[in-house]
């Protein structure tokens, strides 16, 4: 996660421009260089400075090409950032072509599309790119007319001389504009927000028509001459190895070309290393799958053959009963708990989750003569480039990463393991190869969301005040996928909802404990906010009952006065989503704002028939403030019969592409319900017990809330991301609603398993 320090617009000479692989064009070409610092402490992000360029080209016909360097996995980012450029440029959107950048760190800088930060990071630089180009076009027009530039206004792909009404279209000006000096950042005039034509409004995604006609190209859709198809039989246990295999029957399957072993790096091996296994390459997908079915493989299960997730979670629960590693401390928790009149003590247990994007991991690669070109649905082309270069022992510059559309990502496709597999297979086989992960591969060999145990002890004094909050957060760290030294969650992982606990309680203690990873752990949409928001959101509801208060009244009371929370309160381990804390401080006033808004819009406290009730949770994540009310219909055992409605109130600063912001919340609610109600990945003897959608259940249309209402707070604050923030508050709000409806309190996820 990065923090933008400064950005400079640069004019890119034609040679440099062409080198990047963007289509040739004459006219005005602009880039922006953004210096970033990275604060992400996980191993792969700990690399120094990047300087991305984002290009805008206007040719002599007035056609505009905007290069988008972020991956499209459904958020609309491939459209939303170019729309920002077009708005400042006063472009005619119909003249704009959006072009997906290849993976190229030196030209574009960070392209890792995760952490809900594309908009946060690139909104302002994109505005400056558009505004600088507009200024240059206006200057070029002024020079042609020999008038003062203040009399010239860009409008709808033209520059108009206002006093006379004369105009040039952008195409007529592009050549002259390209000879001008790019304005310095301090001189760039941005539009007044009241004149925005696209920012803050809704722009449909550029791929809409292609998607509904089946023409959109995803990772699995790349076609090359002589393309072969590969599948891999992987060891059922993460990190295991092939001892021996018999390919005789597989090779008899018509269409199977070759069977070979892809070596396993063992465990842990990071995010880009293939798991290894036995590869079957065939003329088509069906032959490859049949060939794989015919394989006979003997495995060495390695270090994780003893992983039983049920026992593991039982052990984690036990760990919450002993003293642990303190990660945040305010006041004296022991004394406060001892002196409290009433103690609440709850333990919450959450299972592993799988991402299961509808398009499973896949890719196409062609390795030849010391080079490799890939077409992959990746969230992070940089990792693909680095991972493939290392695996093939070739130079990074010789790895070309074409980024396709992603059929869902949710964090899964930020890892390069499947791309590296594809490249290695192509090299070994010697032709272009498409790799498919079948759904069984996906569900059984994912980098899973961590299972987790949360124990929260709360002390309430005789005056009915909450005086103590003690949270023990125990789960295997993502870092454990890269190194077996990472046996406790990092400060950053705990900053996803636990040590950034905002409520005004005098004595707070957040602890963690050892939990070595026994399978590959990865980040999944909203990451550790899932377990933290569930536990905290549930406990706050329990506190409200104990204090005999309405849950929203209770939350607002605990929040205290409107303020920017002093960073020191959270302690030294706080990581504020990769930003300087001062730039995006924890603002309880904004939090109160969304809570009040959701209460009002959901008609909180309304009369409902027996068996129906509302539940509430508010949670800030990825710098976005979200409050959520779920209305549930449940039977007396707490079984969910239906979810009539969900209301969200959202403060994400300025909502840049409004309809896509709303869509993220609609979809995020459904995504969250999968994990809340149904989804669970469990391990027995190191093997995942689920294999496809019949036993790894995800939300379907009948599970979806009948209505999802998204209320956006009108705001001119800096925009923050919305990919992940919809997820965390849904499960706790639902659990609280079920409790209100039935008296049954679910403390484990999934609830209906």
């Amino acid at each position: 996660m990065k923090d933008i320090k400064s950005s400079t617009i640069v004019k890119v000479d034609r040679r440099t421009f062409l080198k990047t692989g963007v289509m040739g064009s004459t006219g005005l070409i602009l880039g922006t260089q953004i210096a970033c610092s990275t604060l992400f402490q996980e191993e792969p992000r700990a690399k120094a400075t990047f300087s991305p360029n984002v290009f805008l080209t206007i040719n002599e016909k007035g056609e505009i090409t905007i290069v988008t360097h972020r991956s499209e996995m459904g958020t609309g980012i491939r459209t939303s950032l170019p729309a920002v450029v077009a708005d400042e440029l006063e472009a005619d959107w119909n003249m704009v072509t959006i072009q997906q950048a290849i993976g190229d760190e030196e030209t574009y800088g960070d392209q890792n599309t995760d952490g809900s930060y594309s908009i946060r990071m690139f909104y302002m630089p994109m505005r400056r790119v558009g505004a600088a180009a507009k200024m240059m076009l206006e200057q070029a027009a002024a020079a042609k007319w020999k008038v003062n530039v203040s009399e010239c206004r860009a409008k709808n792909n033209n520059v108009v001389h206002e006093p006379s009404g004369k105009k040039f279209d952008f195409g007529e000006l592009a050549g002259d504009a390209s000879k001008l000096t790019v304005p310095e950042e301090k001189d760039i005039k941005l539009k007044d927000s009241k004149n925005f034509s696209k920012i803050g409004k809704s722009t449909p995604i550029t791929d809409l028509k292609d998607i509904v006609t089946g023409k959109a190209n995803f990772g699995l859709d790349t076609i090359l001459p002589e393309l072969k198809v590969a599948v891999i039989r992987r060891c059922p246990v993460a990190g295991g190895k092939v001892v021996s295999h018999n390919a005789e029957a597989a090779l008899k399957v018509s269409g199977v070309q070759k069977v070979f072993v892809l070596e396993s790096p063992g465990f842990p091996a990071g995010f880009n290393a293939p798991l290894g296994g036995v590869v079957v390459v065939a003329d088509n997908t069906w032959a490859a799958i049949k060939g794989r079915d015919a394989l006979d493989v003997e495995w060495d299960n390695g270090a994780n053959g003893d992983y039983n997730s049920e026992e593991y979670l039982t052990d984690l629960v036990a760990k919450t009963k002993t003293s642990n590693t303190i990660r945040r401390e305010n006041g004296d928790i022991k004394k406060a708990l001892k002196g409290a009149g009433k103690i609440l003590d709850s333990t919450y247990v959450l299972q592993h989750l799988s991402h299961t994007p509808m398009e499973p991991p896949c890719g196409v690669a062609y390795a030849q003569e010391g080079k490799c070109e890939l077409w992959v649905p990746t969230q992070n082309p940089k990792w693909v480039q680095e991972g493939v270069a290392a695996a093939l022992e070739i130079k990074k510059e010789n790895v070309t990463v074409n980024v396709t559309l992603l059929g869902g990502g949710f964090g899964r496709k930020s890892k390069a393991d499947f791309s590296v597999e594809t490249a290695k297979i192509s090299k070994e086989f010697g032709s272009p190869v498409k790799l498919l992960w079948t759904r069984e591969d996906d569900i059984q060999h994912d980098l899973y969301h961590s299972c987790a145990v949360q124990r929260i002890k709360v002390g309430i004094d005789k005056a009915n005040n909450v005086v103590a909050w003690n949270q023990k957060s125990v789960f295997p760290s993502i870092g454990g996928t890269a190194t077996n030294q990472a046996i406790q969650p990092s400060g950053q992982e705990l900053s996803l909802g636990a040590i950034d606990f905002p409520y005004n309680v005098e004595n707070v203690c957040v602890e963690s404990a050892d939990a070595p990873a026994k399978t590959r752990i990865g980040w999944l949409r909203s990451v550790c906010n899932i377990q933290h928001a569930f536990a905290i959101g549930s406990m706050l509801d329990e506190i409200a009952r104990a204090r005999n208060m309405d849950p929203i009244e209770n939350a607002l009371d605990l929040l205290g006065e409107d303020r920017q929370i002093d960073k020191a309160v959270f302690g030294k381990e706080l990581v504020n989503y990769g930003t300087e804390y001062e730039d995006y401080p924890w603002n309880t006033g904004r939090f109160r704002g969304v809570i009040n808004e959701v209460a009002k819009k959901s008609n909180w406290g309304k009369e409902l028939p027996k068996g129906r009730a509302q539940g509430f949770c508010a949670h800030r994540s990825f710098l976005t403030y979200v409050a959520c009310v779920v209305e549930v219909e449940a039977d007396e055992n707490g079984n969910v019969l239906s979810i009539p409605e969900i209301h969200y109130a959202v403060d994400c600063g300025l909502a840049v592409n409004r309809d896509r912001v709303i869509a993220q919340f609609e979809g995020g609610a459904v995504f969250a319900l999968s994990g809340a109600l149904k989804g669970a990945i469990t391990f027995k003897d190191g093997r995942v017990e689920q294999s496809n959608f019949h036993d790894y259940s995800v939300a379907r249309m009948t599970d979806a809330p009948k209505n999802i209402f998204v209320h956006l707070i009108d705001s001119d604050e800096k925009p923050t991301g919305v990919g992940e923030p919809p997820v965390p508050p849904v499960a706790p709000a639902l659990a609280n609603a079920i409790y209100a409806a039935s008296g049954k309190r679910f403390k484990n996820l999934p609830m209906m398993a």
Partner: protein
Amino acid sequence: MPTYQITINGKKQTIDSVDADMPILWVLRDMLQMTGTKFGCGKALCGACTVHLNGTAIRSCSTPISAVGDQKIKTIEGLSENGDHPLQQAWVQENVPQCGYCQSGQIMNAAAFLDSNPSPSDEEIRDAMNGNICRCGTYNRIHKAIKVAAEKGGKS
């Protein structure tokens, strides 16, 4: 290996030497380079691969080519000539897709459903679409788009 003559989107296609058990999905995608039909699960559990067989929605991942015979296959590429089937129009109007991967299967499933039930109730839509998974969670917009198309007489 056998050769099959099948009709796809009104066009006769000859598929040379494929296994009789090859699912239509892979015939479309690998043999004919028709990639609009998507792979999602391979077990008829998610609906991403939905096509029409004589007007009925089927899961092409689990229907072998040998089962086709004289029956006509229609895929997303052939749903309408200009991408203007009432459902495609409604999908655009309601901005349904997020990532978009499952949407051709959703649309094909909805199209066969509306052909058999032109004025469905809310519940009937939910039941009919329950076999189609969307991990982005666009269900409510899919539901709305089907209603919009139905109101405009959404038969193909």
